[in-house]
């Protein structure tokens, strides 16, 4: 019960398996790798599936499109190095948007204006950088675009968190209103081409081959370092650590999967003489934001309070949490990350027009839900939303390659969304009767 023990308590020789007085209370960290794996499957069986259905769906879709491409087109267009790189850059913007939305969806809120927010921000960007206009430095203009996100997020946050209007209503209003702002900024029918090489490079250029491997090495090093840090803190507190084999296993999985991805992207995927190879620049950018966001959600008060408010806002309030501030900040984070998503999208297509961002937000919400993020709040991770976005991107990419009419894409995506929600609901109902969830 003491707040700060002057000396760390002696590490209990082995709390792992002994039934202490008063009955042993575990921490879920005990036991070998077998116990951990069993515990994991028990969690899954009890309805805590996380992104598992989405990952399964992703694998099924990849196999399906590989077969369909071979049989329907007589040639493999889907499972190629080039399409893989293509897919990643196509998905980047949606991944980012879905991750942005997670911050408000976790609160049980929604931001329908996330897409058009990026529209306003990117309009400001193209207007400011126009060579025959203000001709502003593109980095500065990018900062302005992100600030536009801050302002819009703060505006939404004010009405939702402080005034108490449902976010659905506020952001629906903004969804309509901000389209008007974009229209005024750009003028109707105007298409603004972006001719800033560095800006276009985000989505259209690649890291050098060695850069991809360095990226993977950094990921492994950071992951290993954080594991060691966590274990050191736990050891200092005298609580058991998960078996070290698990740390190694996790690193091995990252190394193998990451190594495979980097290796594939390091192949020449050009169909002409000029070689194209390397990890697209957008990939490390997305991974960095994913890592920072996950860090904030898992390990800082801001993140913990977002989950708490999403789970039981009144309990959070009674615990002294500044509910209004947290809500407010979450909307700002969402809007800013939505602008980043817009940057990826603008960099990919190389232009911004008056309709920019009007048709993306619902795909972002769908991606989050497909990945296992609950719209009721309190449940879900950034990684889940990212995987959900990949599912939706694979559907669009695969069906596009098969030359099916665009309508099919919408129908399939909608079907997958409902399917994902059903899998989630069924797994939860099945687990409902059980109180033994660990």
């Amino acid at each position: 019960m003491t707040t700060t023990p002057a000396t760390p308590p002696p590490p209990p020789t082995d709390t792992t398996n002994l039934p202490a007085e008063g009955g042993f209370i575990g921490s879920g960290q005990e036991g070998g790798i077998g116990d951990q794996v069993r515990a994991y499957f028990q969690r899954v069986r009890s309805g805590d599936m996380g992104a598992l259905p989405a990952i399964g769906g992703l694998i099924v879709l990849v196999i399906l499109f590989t077969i369909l491409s071979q049989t329907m087109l007589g040639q493999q267009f889907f499972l190629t190095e080039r399409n893989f790189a293509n897919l990643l850059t196509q998905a980047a913007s949606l991944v980012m948007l879905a991750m942005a939305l997670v911050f408000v969806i976790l609160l049980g809120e929604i931001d329908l204006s996330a897409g058009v927010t990026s529209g306003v921000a990117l309009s400001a960007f193209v207007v400011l950088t126009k060579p025959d206009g203000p001709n502003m430095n593109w980095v500065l203009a990018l900062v302005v675009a992100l600030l536009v996100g801050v302002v819009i997020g703060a505006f939404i946050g004010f009405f939702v968190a402080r005034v108490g209007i449902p976010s659905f209503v506020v952001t629906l209003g903004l969804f309509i209103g901000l389209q008007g702002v974009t229209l005024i900024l750009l003028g109707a029918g105007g298409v603004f081409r972006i001719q800033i090489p560095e800006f276009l490079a985000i989505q259209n250029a690649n890291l050098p081959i060695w850069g991809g491997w360095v990226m993977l090495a950094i990921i492994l090093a950071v992951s290993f370092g954080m594991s060691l840090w966590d274990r050191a803190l736990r050891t200092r507190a005298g609580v058991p650590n998960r078996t070290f084999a698990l740390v190694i296993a996790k690193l091995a999985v990252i190394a193998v999967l990451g190594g495979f991805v980097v290796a594939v992207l390091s192949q020449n995927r050009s169909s002409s003489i000029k070689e194209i190879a390397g990890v697209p620049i957008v990939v490390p950018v997305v991974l960095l934001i994913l890592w920072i966001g996950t860090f904030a959600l898992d390990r800082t008060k801001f993140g913990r309070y977002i989950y708490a408010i999403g789970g039981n806002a009144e309990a959070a309030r009674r615990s002294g949490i500044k509910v209004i501030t947290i809500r407010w900040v979450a909307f700002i984070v969402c809007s800013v990350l939505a602008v980043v998503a817009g940057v990826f999208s603008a960099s990919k297509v190389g232009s911004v027009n008056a309709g920019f961002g009007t048709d993306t937000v619902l795909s972002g919400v769908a991606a989050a839900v497909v990945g296992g993020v609950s719209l009721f709040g309190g449940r879900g991770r950034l990684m889940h939303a990212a995987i959900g976005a990949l599912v939706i991107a694979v559907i669009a990419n695969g069906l596009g390659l098969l030359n099916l009419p665009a309508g099919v894409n919408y129908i399939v995506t909608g079907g997958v969304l409902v399917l994902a929600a059903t899998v989630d609901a069924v797994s939860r109902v099945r687990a409902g009767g059980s109180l033994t969830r660990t």
Partner: protein
Amino acid sequence: MADTPLIELTDIVKSFGPVSVLKGVNLKAFPGKVTALVGDNGAGKSTLIKGLAGVQPYDGGEVRFDGQAVHLHSPRDASALGIEVVYQDLALCDNLDIVQNMFLGREETAGLIFDEGQMEREASETLRSLSVRTVKSVRQKVSSLSGGQRQTVAIARSVLKKAKLVVLDEPTAALGVAQTEQVLNLVRRLADQGVAVIIISHNLQDVFKVADYINVLYLGTMVAAIPTAETTSDDVVGYITGSKTYDGVNV
């Protein structure tokens, strides 16, 4: 009796719109003593408690803590004074685990990030001190706990940090015989450590077992405040239902 009360409420009023729920309530709680608050459903017990927690501030009246006039406008005001409350509806986050719930709003950090190990150890120690047997892991989600287990977690949360005043709103309502015994023992133990305890209960047997003083709230007014030794169960039932009156209200 001669001690200064740790908390002294005078003329507390609270209404929800036109409905006046607390009509000038007085209450004292002393360090090292258990003060029971009883009364029928809807008498205003929980409302009185929520004001003390800063969750639902009073409309008027005076609150003195350790002799000082204080204002309880937010939960932070209350916890800064060392007031911990177990709410009738428990107020736990289902999507968080036991440790996360117990430390919600007062997480231990190592630099910017959480010190999960430290929190886990303190949580297990506190739970163990409450003789919790059935909880398998402190990392269980609260949604997976039974009603009684949830109640224990809520109680454990309130005694995690050294509080000066612990308020328990029907803490044993969902508990089994053995667990109820544990909680009553805990209440006694807390008081023996010098903590002022206010306990709300509908179970008069429990109240007589553990309380030093009994306060009866009847339709928003405190109709009796009596040392437990000087009254009987029958009398208290009379005050609760309004069929008896007590003249020594202003102790």
